[in-house]
């Protein structure tokens, strides 16, 4: 089965529909699927629910899909690096479901692993617990959280082979593996597609079974908070 596609537009062909749930990898602007986001903007698909830890910034990352009003609802742990996001949210145009970051990651992982729900201590006694089942284990309370089963996953990796085995780089891994796992279809964009056999099988971060389509392209990889030391401090 051929997994390698020539462009984001080609890879997205036939997988988009209005109202769908998309899981997106990335943390801040680190490791986000820039090319696929651009492709989704171009497609014009609308009323999307997007599960992603953050919502990009104005004019970059998921911020682009907010600018075009293609997102109806975000499931995130931290937002608001984005004036347009806040404008749409405060005016009621955009729905927002806050999930604690670890709960969001585990909801994706669980969805991908066929686990419809799990109990966690995170959020017990807070607004996050409202309306959720509480169960006691060994004298401590836990709340029930549900797995996320996305219609589509969009992720960014460093390298792939043509079978979809993925390798990530440094902290750009973040939400990409769990996001990839929880989608019925997963499209990965990478910096380099390498020949089969050139990735060490012992060092694959995400096996190709989770990845259905792959594209290669150039990434801007914008830095959100550039912080440095002066050389003389060494």
């Amino acid at each position, binding site marked *: 089965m051929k997994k390698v596609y020539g462009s984001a537009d080609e890879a997205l062909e036939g997988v988009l529909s209005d109202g769908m749930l998309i899981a997106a990898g990335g943390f801040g*602007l680190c490791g986000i699927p820039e090319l696929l986001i651009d492709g989704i903007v171009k497609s014009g698909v609308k009323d999307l629910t997007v599960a992603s830890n953050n919502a990009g910034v104005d004019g970059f990352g998921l911020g682009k899909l907010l600018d075009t009003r293609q997102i109806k609802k975000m499931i995130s742990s*931290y937002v608001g690096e984005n004036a347009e996001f806040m404008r749409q949210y405060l005016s009621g145009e955009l729905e927002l479901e806050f999930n604690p*970051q670890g709960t969001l990651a585990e909801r994706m992982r669980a969805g991908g692993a066929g686990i419809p729900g799990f109990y966690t201590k995170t959020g017990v*006694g807070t607004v996050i617990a409202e309306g959720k089942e509480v169960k006691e284990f060994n004298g401590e309370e836990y709340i029930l959280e549900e797995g996320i089963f996305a219609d589509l996953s969009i992720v960014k990796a460093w390298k792939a082979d043509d079978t979809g085995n993925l390798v990530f780089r440094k902290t750009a891994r973040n939400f990409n593996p769990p996001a990839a796992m929880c989608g019925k279809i997963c499209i990965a964009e990478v910096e380099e597609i390498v020949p089969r056999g050139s990735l060490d099988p012992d060092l694959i971060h995400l096996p190709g079974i989770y990845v259905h389509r792959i594209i290669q392209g150039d990434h801007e990889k914008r830095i959100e*908070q550039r912080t440095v030391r002066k050389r003389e401090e060494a």
Partner: protein
Amino acid sequence: MPWDRNQMAARAAEELEDGMYVNLGIGIPTLVANYVGDKDITLQSENGMLGMGPFPFEGDEDADLINAGKQTITELSRTSYFDSATSFGMIRGGKIAAAILGAMEVAENGDLANWMIPGKLVKGMGGAMDLVAGVGRVVVVMDHTNKHGDSKVLKECTLPLTGKGVVDRIITNLGVLDVVEGGLKIVECADGVTEDDLRAATQATIVG
């Protein structure tokens, strides 16, 4: 003289023991890393890294290497990377010995509020709820009072909670308090601060 930010960070660093894996929050807690001295401490960044190094030198920034505050950082010889589900697995699983974080309010029963003020812009809890629910020990570092002079160390939190009964120790500009049965216990006063000063600035019940 109450402690300044750096003195609070230095005091918080005394909480850390050799060999600990620790998560530091944003603000004063970040400064704690400057005061660990010779102790072998491994810093976790919840976006997927153990063994966080200092900021890079100018020109060495790497867009693929950031901390949970989205700042560019560096790796160390001990560094490992992992995905977000694994990262919060080690947090939720109690593998991280301690978290040092800031707060808006702390209550005498250990309740912590640090993620939202109703009516104001809410950006989200990020990983704070997972951290306080999961790590071995939660140490709060904050000013004892707010800018109006009102105590932030309360009988009950007024703001929405980040975690219920999760705080173990509070380090403020005025001193150190532990959450114990029935209220808070004074562990130590900042230089030149008396127990009476500390009591006067604290709304919570002080026991012992």
